[in-house]
């Protein structure tokens, strides 16, 4: 078994993904079948955000990857030698 920080990090990843999966499943699948005056609706944003928020997260991820690539390539450009 891994020890210390590895175990904590791994377990927190598992718990985080479980929480995310449960919340998203309830949002997408359970909520339409629940009466609109049930208190559960208070904990969830309007339905459109269930698509918009992951879309924004994906765009941010792509921007971070692109920015990292740009920074590395910028640091390694070779200026043309002038004789």
């Amino acid at each position, binding site marked *: 078994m891994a020890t210390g920080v590895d175990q904590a990090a791994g377990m927190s*990843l*598992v718990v985080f993904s479980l929480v*995310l*999966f449960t919340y998203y499943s309830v949002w997408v699948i359970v909520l339409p079948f629940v009466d609109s005056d049930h208190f559960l609706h208070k904990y969830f944003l309007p*339905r459109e955000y269930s698509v918009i928020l*992951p879309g924004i997260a994906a765009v941010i991820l792509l921007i971070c990857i692109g920015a990292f690539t740009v920074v590395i390539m910028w640091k390694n450009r070779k200026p043309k030698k002038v004789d």
Partner: protein
Amino acid sequence: MTKLLQWLLAVSLLGALWALVTFDLLDLSLPQTYREVAWPMPFYLLISFGCYSLATVGYRVATFNDCEEAAKELQEQIKEAKEDLRRKGLKI
């Protein structure tokens, strides 16, 4: 039929089914609740796949046995690689 064609066929079939329900192409007039569940389906499947991958990675990180010598050897190799790349001119 190649694997690629099989996958494309399956994906397009499921995609057609989803479009049918979401955009009501055959005027089936399904109950509103079923249509509300159907339209985020592609995003839902994508996110569940992402969650599954994250959980698998996290679980394997938590249960992987520590290997002391391999860790030291890896650190040595990382230092060597950094030196090598620095000599060749790559700056991180």
